[in-house]
Structures are given as C-alpha cells and as structure tokens.
C-alpha cells in the first residue's frame, strides 16, 4: 500500500475565498467592458480577457493583429494548472456560478455507494466509471466536438464556432444586452430627476445623458445566454463541463498538469467531495479525478472531513497511456465531427455568402470578406465601442456564417468620420487598426439616391438633409427642371451612411448605402488606392449654381409650390 505523504498545505479558511477572486476578476472584466467607449485611453488594457483566450488568438492568426503573449501565458498556465482559469478568472464561469447558486444547485450530495477499502489505493481503479444519471448529457463529450469544430472551422476559414467561446460570449452579451439596458435605466433615472435638477440649477445633471445603444440581434443573444445559464438547471456548471470549447482546450492542455487533486489513504469515501465538485470531476471513485474536468477550485478540499484531499504541484508519478478525454468514445467524436464539419461547409455554401445577395456593409478597415469571416470571433467589442451604434451584430438574415459579425445599420446611425475605435479594439485584427486619415479613405460603400421616394426629387421640396449630414461633401445639388436636386458624387462618397441616417423619408431611406465600391484589403494604404482611382476626399469647388438676383425675388423659392 502506497502511502501518500501528507504535505503542508493551506487550510480552506486561510486562503482567499474562491468567490472573492472571481468577483475581482469579474469586476475587472466589467470595468473593461464599460470603459470600451470614446475616448480611447491607451492605459486601459481593453482586450485583456480576449487576448488571454488562446482560441481567439488562433483566429487572429489569419488577421492583422499579432499579439499572442497573453495567450501563450494562458497555454503555459493550462499546462501547469489545467483549468484553473475556469474557476477563478472566466467571467462567464462566474455568471454561471451565480446563477447556479440562485437555482439552488450548490452542494448537492448524491448518495454514494461505499467502495471496499481494498480498492482505495491509487492507480488500480478501472478506466471508466458508471456515470450518475443526471450527468448523462453533461458527460456526453460535446465539448470535444465543439472544440474540434473550432479547429475545423478555422481550417475552412469560418470562425462561426467561436460564437461559443466563453470570453467572446460574455463580452458580446454585455455589449448587446446588459449595456443597452443599463443605459436605458440610467437615462430614465436622470430623466425622472430632470425637473428637480432644473429647479435646483443642477444643469450638469439635467442635461446629462448617455447615448442609448440598441441592437437588433439582442434577443437572439439573450436567448443564447439564457440557454447557457439555464443549463444549470440540469447540473451545476453544465456549460463548463460539457460544452465550453475553451474549457475543453484548457482541459486538454492540463491532462498532464503537475497541479492536481491528490487523495490520501485517510479518505473514508464519504462522498462529500463528489457532491461538492461543481464540475462532476470526481466520479464513483473518490481517489480519482477527471483531470480535464477539474477546475482546481478546491471545493472538494474544503468539504473533506478528514483532510484527505490536497492540491500540489508535483509531477505525475507514473507515466501512463493517455486515454481519450473522458466521456467520449472515438466513434461519437467522429460522428459529431462529421455533422459539425458538414454544418461548417454548408454555411459557406449559403447563397447569401456565395453571391453576396445582401447589402452587407462592413466597418471601415474590415478585411476582405473571406478573411474577415475567418478572423472575426464575434466578441462584440466593436459593437460596444462604436460611438454611433451603427455597428450591429448580424442575426440570421445575412446567413448563419455571418451570425454575430459586425454589420452597419446605416438607417439607425451613420459611421462617424472622426472615429476609428472599432479597428483599435478588435482583438483579432478582423477590422484593421487604421489611423484616422486611413479610416476616412477606407470606403465602406457608395450612397445611391432613390428618386421615387426622395422628397427633393419626387416632391420638389427644399430638403438637403443628406447634404447637411455628409462629412465628405459628396452630395451635390444641381438645378434640374428649375429645382435643386441632390446627386451623389461617387468619387467623394465614403459610404459612411450619415445621409441614410438623417433622410426624413418614413421607413426605408431615399438615400441608401450599397457596398459597391467598397475597399477591403488586408494590407496597404487605402489613401493610395483612392488616389490611384482618382477618388478625392479633399475640398473642391462647389458645384452649386446660385440663381442670379432678380429684383429681390428668390430663385430658390421659384421651385416651391
């Protein structure tokens, strides 16, 4: 009988509580998400969590941002401590813990069959255990299939599976769900206080308001988040143990990790650790741990009545054959991968992708569509930081392959000429980090006037809102049939959509930005291209013909009825 030496270790009470560290990490995450706004502050590490994520760094390999130091750090941590990130740092993990707690899913103690004492020695247990009934779905090994799909997707230039990356999911959920709601509440509160503030002369408060964002894909994201959190009804941390692709990756890295749970012979097989483990990492046999599920939260250590459990950095005693990750047969894995790969290929065969049947407008500096879809991890950071909220998460309408990627809704708001923050924040370089002058030359598309609905064309009104809003002076008014009528000077139009946003026509605007003429390139200067194509965004002589004076009467009025 091998005797595992008991070693000095911190008692549960003397180390900082797990939830304190979690709350601190989550607060940092929240702070970074909230501070993702104009103006850009170089001292804030906005992308900290996204940069930590090795999966997003994999996607970034096909982008333009090449910063992998933090992701490498995560890999090293994973190799040494396994899934410790999931227990302490992951913002989604914290949310899941909180929700699980609310659902009353903590500390369940299933009845444990007592094992004969002679089997209590380490290393002689069978390879597999019968699974507890509630965990049947939880241990189906879906996470390995999802992780596999991330790799297959990246190989096929399709980063769609990364919508399930927990960091991206948390960032996107904050951006499109919680931040807009928070602003709505804050502005509403200020609105209620406004009469009082005016009366007291608190003008700073009375006229304070935050720009209200809103996202067309918010409900879809809310449903996804509700699903992820609601799975806690089945088992604690259901998402983490059986779906999360990042968790699967860290678990895979940590299979040989020296930091692992160790049980001494003092164990009485009381089963408390099995009940306490949020990940279901301790099976029937309390001496064994599923390393790829263990998040090193030490819940088991805290509940052990005989102090038989310890976590320590010690290389594995015996070099052993590594079986497939727990909970997955080879057959199931390939079955799942087959369907997953089919799905990935099918999204690329979608006519909306193949032929671009949609008016899909990408932010200035976005990579060519194929590279963009390989690189964009759909984290929603650009949506969050966009000053006008023109950037929206695509829903299903542009094809599943574009789900969650940023698209412009120019009718809602135009793309600000003086802002290049989406490129600055993008963690993978799917949107290039462009200096302002380059951003202004990165052509998003071209505006087209629909004369049938334009009030200046169809109703002879003196409406020049599009001209007033155009930062590039691309709307030109010329007299036609005695009326001033707008034209778009294509050689000056950036496609920023300010015109489409302000057009007073009810419903669909009478001036619409189409992606024609868009410039998408992985490298090189947009300004040079425009200059080559004789497209100028500098001041020029105005084409407006002013009427000659006729004894005080006004030619401009002549056209009005």
């Amino acid at each position, binding site marked *: 009988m091998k005797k595992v030496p008991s070693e000095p270790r911190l008692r549960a009470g003397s180390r900082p509580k797990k939830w304190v560290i979690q709350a601190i990490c989550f607060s940092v995450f929240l702070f970074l998400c909230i501070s993702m706004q*104009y*103006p850009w502050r170089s001292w804030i590490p906005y992308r900290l969590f996204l940069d930590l994520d090795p999966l997003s760094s994999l996607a970034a390999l096909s982008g333009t941002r090449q910063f992998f130091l933090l992701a490498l750090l995560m890999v090293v941590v994973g190799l040494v401590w396994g899934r410790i990130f999931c227990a302490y740092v992951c913002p989604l993990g914290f949310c899941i813990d909180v929700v699980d707690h609310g659902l009353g899913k903590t500390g369940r103690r299933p009845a444990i069959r007592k094992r004969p004492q002679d089997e209590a020695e380490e290393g002689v247990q069978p390879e597999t255990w019968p699974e507890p009934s509630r965990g049947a779905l939880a241990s189906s090994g879906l996470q390995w299939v999802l992780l596999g799909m991330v790799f297959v997707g990246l190989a096929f230039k399709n980063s769609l599976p990364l919508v399930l990356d927990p960091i991206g999911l948390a960032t996107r959920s904050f951006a499109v769900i919680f931040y807009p709601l928070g602003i709505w509440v804050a*502005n509403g509160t200020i*609105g209620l206080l*406004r*009469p*009082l503030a*005016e*009366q007291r*002369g608190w*003008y*700073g408060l*009375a*006229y304070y*308001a935050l*720009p209200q964002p809103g996202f067309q894909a918010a409900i879809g994201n809310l449903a996804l988040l509700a699903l992820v959190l609601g799975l806690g009804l089945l088992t604690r941390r259901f998402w983490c143990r059986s779906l999360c692709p990042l968790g699967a990756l860290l678990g895979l890295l940590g299979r040989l990790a020296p930091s692992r749970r160790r049980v001494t012979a003092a164990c009485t097989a009381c089963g408390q650790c099995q009940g306490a483990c949020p990940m279901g990492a301790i099976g029937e046999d309390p001496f064994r741990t599923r390393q790829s599920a263990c998040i090193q939260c030490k819940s088991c250590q805290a509940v052990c009545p005989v102090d038989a459990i310890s976590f320590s950095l010690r290389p594995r005693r015996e070099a052993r054959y590594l079986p497939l990750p727990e909970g997955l047969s080879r057959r199931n894995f390939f079955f799942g991968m087959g369907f997953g790969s089919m799905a990935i290929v099918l999204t690329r065969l979608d006519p909306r992708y193949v032929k671009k049947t949609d008016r899909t407008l990408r932010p200035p500096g976005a990579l060519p569509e194929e590279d963009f879809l390989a690189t964009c991890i759909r984290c929603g950071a650009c949506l969050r930081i966009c*000053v*006008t909220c023109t950037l929206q998460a695509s829903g299903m309408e542009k094809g599943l392959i574009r789900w969650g990627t940023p698209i412009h809704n120019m009718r809602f708001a135009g793309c*600000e*000429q*003086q*802002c290049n923050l989406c490129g600055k924040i993008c963690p993978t370089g799917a949107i290039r980090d462009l200096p302002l002058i380059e951003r202004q030359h990165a052509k998003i598309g071209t505006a087209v006037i629909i004369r049938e609905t334009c*009030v200046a064309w169809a109703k002879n*009104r*003196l*409406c*020049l*809102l599009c*001209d*007033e*809003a*155009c*930062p*590039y*002076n691309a*709307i030109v*008014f010329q007299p036609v049939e005695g009326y001033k009528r707008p034209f778009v000077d294509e050689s000056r139009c950036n496609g920023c959509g*300010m015109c489409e946003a*302000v057009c*007073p*026509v009810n419903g669909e605007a009478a001036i619409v930005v189409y992606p024609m003429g868009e410039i998408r390139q992985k490298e090189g200067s947009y300004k040079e291209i425009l200059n080559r194509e004789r497209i100028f*965004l*500098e*001041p020029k*002589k*105005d084409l*407006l013909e*002013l*009427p000659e*004076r006729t004894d*005080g009467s*006004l030619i*401009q*009025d002549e056209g*009005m009825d």
Partner: protein
Amino acid sequence: MFGDARNLPCGRSWSLTMKAVSRRTILKGALASCLPLSFPSVVLSRDRNETGARPRVVQVQGPIEASLHILLEELGGVSRFVKSGDTVLIKPNMSFPNPSEQATTTDPSLVRAMARHCLRAGAKRVLVADHPMRAVKLCLEMTGMKEACGDLPSVHLIGASQEGMFHQVTLSRTKELQAVKVLRAALDADVQINLPRMKSHGATTVSLGMKGNMGLIWDRAIFHSRLDLNEAIGDLNTLIRADLTILDGSRALIAGGPLGPGPVEELGCLIGGADPVAVDAFGVQRVEWYGKRIAPDQIPHLVACHKRGIGEIDLDRVDIVSRKAPAS
C-alpha cells in the same frame, strides 16, 4: 398663442420670477396667464433695449478676444445684455466633431471669452448649449469646447441628445410651424447669446444666426421634409430670438457648408449686434458665397424673418460700425 400654464418648461413657480424683466419672465408670463390672443408673439421677444432706434451692427477686425472686447464696448458693454444673477444661454455651433480650422463650428476661444464676459457681468450661470448632429461626446471634445469651457465655474456645457431635454411649445400665430420642441435651457435662460460660425449652407445658402437657432430644437427633419424650410425658420425665430448675436467670422466656410469640407476664408473678424437679422444681413454681404456676391434679400429665410418683424434686413437702415482690434 402659447397655450396655457401646462406649457411651463419646468416646475419653477412663474409668479415669483415676475419681478425681474427678462425674456424668460415675459415668456413665462405669456405662457402662464394666456395674455390676449391678439398680442403678436413677436412683440414678446422684441429686443428690450433697442425698440425704436436704428439697429447697430459692429464689425471688428483682429484677434478674437480683443475683437470681442471692442465689439461689446461698441454695443454698450456686456452689462447691457447680461444683468447680475441672470442665467445666460450661449448658443455656439458645435454640431460637428471638426476643429475650428475647418470653419464648421464656432471657435472655442470665442465661446470661452464670451462666457467669461458674462460671468464678469454677474451672470449666475452660463449654459453653453447646442443640439449636435453627430455623436455628442465627440462633438464637445473635437470642437475644443470641452477644453475651452470645462474649467470655468458656473459654466455648463450642454450637448443635448434626448427628447426629454426639450419642451413642446405651441405657436398659434404662425403659418408654417405650429409646434416645436425647444431646448428647455433656452426657455429657461434670461439672456440668449447666439455665436454662430459664418458658413455656407446647401439649403439656405448661408447658415448664420437665424439658421443657427435650429440648434435649439429637437426635430429638425420636418423643417426639410414637411415644412417650407425658409418660412419655418422665420416662424422659429419668432419664438427664439437672441438678445445678442455675434458671428464668428475669424474664418468663414464660403462653400461646401454646413459640414464641409470646403474652402475656408480667413476673414479675421467678428460681426455682432442686438438685431439678429441685421447681423445676418451684414454677414451675408461680407464675403462672396460660392464665389458670388449675394444680397441679404436673396436669402429667403432672412426675408422670412424680416417679414415677421424680427429685425432689419435692409442694411441702409442699419448703423454699421467698423473697428480694428490691435494685434496682441
């Protein structure tokens, strides 16, 4: 005319404010007590100091701060407009996130200097307000307004962005514009000072003081789509009338306005006066717009304002004073 007492812009008791004769008081008195409906609304907002006399327009050439000083002196000092304890509304153009060099927004140093003059004259507070067309945060920052006015005490920089900051006012004597949502701070202020940038405008040819007042209302789109733009500007100005208008002519955007980019002419002057139409009229003929000399009566919205008795459009009936400020 103005509807009834429910139109009061805020919860403050109107009867207590009747002691001081101010625009706000007059406006509120009208709102609250429903004065005889035959009383034209224009009379309510007539300049309290200049009725009867020939309006005066002052043009000062030179650096902004020194020019402003001389300009105010020529108009009788800032104390003619701002009384001790007044709430002053300064309405610059900060509609776009462009630096002053592009001549699409008012120079922040002019706004700062004006605010300081008001404070020195005893103003209780100065509200620097506009309803920007672009992202408010960017506008306040990139125009330089935040930097220029941020450190002044009792000066509040207001970039309106919410409908709740505006108050619905009904106009009954007007033809084109029946009701409009006006910035509550504008209704609340005792004195209104308009500091527009001199610039061209695609629809109205020029955008000076009269057009600039569209920065104090909520829904501007209907001016273009539903209403006759020029007549509606005239109607709007019967409701909002600046006590003092100073055109920022340090630079003028002579074509490609209102947002540019376009040719900028370095005029280096300020043009001011208490009669807003006369100031605009002088501004119109001060430079060539779109490469053409334009007379004030060729600008339909100025004519519309003149017809409503807001001010004098005929420069022959205006006293024009030209001064030069010493270069510092």
